[in-house]
């Protein structure tokens, strides 16, 4: 075994390479949790219910379980690898060290696209929420949503620009409120304390149980991802946590447990009061199912709580997406996979400030110029491509650096079972996406093939090949 031990509290194992200004190590496990859960929780407040439209309430529950297994595998694999590759860039950096430059370039782009698109989708949603509040307050006419969309992106970008500790502490507070709101809604409507309003038996009997049969269950897997999409974003905090070996696995695994609870409660309360035809139509029916459930409860306190919960979940997601997209872009710039200019760190705030500012207009273009469902579909597809890379990554990681060669902060159990399970579930989900969005899937894969050719034949000559590997790992087995 090498002398390098990432779990050591005394040494970090990384020698000085000339860093004058680097990212600040100030985060703890709670911030990692807030980053991961914060990005995802908006999927519980809105979006998951499209799965109900694809196959009914039971199909959405089955999708919730299988997507839960998919993301549990993602969280376990990520926790092991990233507790060892403790650097900004997350899966991009993992791919660079374990697979190779071309995979790293592609994974880096998946990350930036997935998070920037999701940020844009969240901003669109925030604009919509402001218009709903205006209408509920008696505003006549149509509110211009654009200033609220832009304000959301600009405020959160500014917050990210000013420092990671304030950014993720803000996320911790609003994410915790949004999660507690779901629990309070469950306690207030399920009948645990009496006075329940659940009507599962009558709403899900007969043809309503599986309206489109088992193909509907398969199709529901596409939107089943929404329950958990983004938990893998915790890895982007790797270079800013005080103890990567402890905080990253702890925050990530606590995050997926939180989401499994939130997803199950969300499904239970929403399908218990809303007919599947209304619940499954996220455009003209139930845009925000948890908020609609609160409205049907007749409690003003629940309506206010879930109203704020919806807004907070949206802001937390956009905030986390800005954090993650900028770290991935920054890491690629630092290694010269993109112009090195993006690899700058602010000397006072210690954030990747150029990457943050550069991605603002891109998010604005998508938020103001693209339809919501297209934006979200491209985000999901990028995420799905990233999950497909993960099983290959962990299998190669265990082969090249077995457990006795590098000490991990966390060793995931039952290897290689989670890797193969993840691969199988990704294949099923690709088919489910193909059923509904085949054109976008083909277009997306075509795009990545084109940029891969560009990277291979042009951009790779600028990559700083020697300086990009700073991890003091032993030689891989067999080399």
């Amino acid at each position, binding site marked *: 075994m090498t002398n390098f031990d990432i779990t050591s509290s005394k040494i970090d194992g990384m020698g000085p390479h000339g860093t*004058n200004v680097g990212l600040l190590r100030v985060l703890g496990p709670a911030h990692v949790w807030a980053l991961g859960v914060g990005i995802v929780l908006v999927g519980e407040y809105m979006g998951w219910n499209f799965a109900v439209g694809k196959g009914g309430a039971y199909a959405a529950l089955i999708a919730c379980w299988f997507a839960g297994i998919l993301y549990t595998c993602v969280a376990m694999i990520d926790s092991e690898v990233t507790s060892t590759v403790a650097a900004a860039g997350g899966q991009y950096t993992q791919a660079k060290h374990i697979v190779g430059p071309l995979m790293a370039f592609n994974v880096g782009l998946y990350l930036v696209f997935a998070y920037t698109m999701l940020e844009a989708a969240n901003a669109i949603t925030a604009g919509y929420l402001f218009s709903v509040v205006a209408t509920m307050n008696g505003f006549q006419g149509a509110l211009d949503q654009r200033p609220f969309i*832009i304000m959301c992106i600009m405020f959160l970008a500014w917050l990210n620009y000013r420092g990671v500790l304030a950014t993720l502490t803000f996320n911790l507070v609003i994410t915790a409120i949004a999660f507690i709101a779901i629990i309070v809604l469950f306690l207030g409507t399920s009948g645990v304390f009496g006075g329940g309003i659940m009507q599962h038996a009558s709403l899900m009997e007969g043809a309503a149980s599986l309206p489109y049969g088992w193909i509907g269950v398969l199709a529901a897997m596409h939107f089943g991802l929404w329950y958990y999409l983004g938990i893998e974003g915790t890895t982007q905090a790797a270079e800013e946590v005080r103890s990567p070996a402890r905080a990253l696995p702890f925050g990530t695994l606590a995050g997926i447990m939180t989401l499994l609870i939130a997803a199950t409660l969300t499904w239970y309360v929403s399908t218990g009061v809303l007919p599947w035809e209304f619940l499954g139509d996220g455009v003209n029916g139930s845009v925000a199912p948890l908020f609609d459930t609160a409205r049907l409860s007749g409690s003003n306190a629940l309506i206010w709580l879930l109203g704020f919960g919806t807004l907070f979940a949206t802001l937390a997601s956009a905030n986390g997406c800005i954090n993650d997209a900028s770290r991935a872009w920054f890491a690629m710039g630092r290694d010269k996979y993109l112009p090195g200019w993006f690899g700058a760190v602010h000397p006072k705030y210690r954030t990747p*400030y150029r990457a943050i500012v550069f991605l603002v207009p891109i998010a604005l273009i998508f938020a103001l110029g693209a339809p919501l469902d297209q934006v979200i579909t491209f985000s999901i597809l990028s995420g799905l491509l990233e999950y497909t890379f993960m099983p290959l990554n962990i299998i190669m990681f265990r082969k090249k650096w077995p457990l006795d060669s590098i000490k991990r902060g966390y060793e995931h159990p039952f290897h290689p079972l989670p890797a193969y399970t993840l691969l199988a579930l990704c294949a099923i989900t690709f088919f489910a996406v193909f059923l509904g969005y085949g054109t976008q899937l083909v277009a997306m894969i075509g795009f990545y093939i084109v940029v891969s050719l560009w990277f291979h034949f042009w951009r790779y000559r600028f990559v700083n090949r020697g300086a990009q590997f700073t991890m003091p790992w032993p030689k891989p087995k067999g080399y």
Partner: protein
Amino acid sequence: MQTWNYVEYGAWALSALFGILMVVDWIKTDSTYSEEVLTSSREGELEAMTEQHKN
């Protein structure tokens, strides 16, 4: 003119304010520090100034 119209103007103004704050600081930072210092960060490396090894 309703209250929400003023809120709209407020949102435009705040958007501009946050944008200006970032761009002004960005220009100030780039003109104050050398490019070598700003881009000196290396992967996963802890800064010598902040990481004091006790043993």
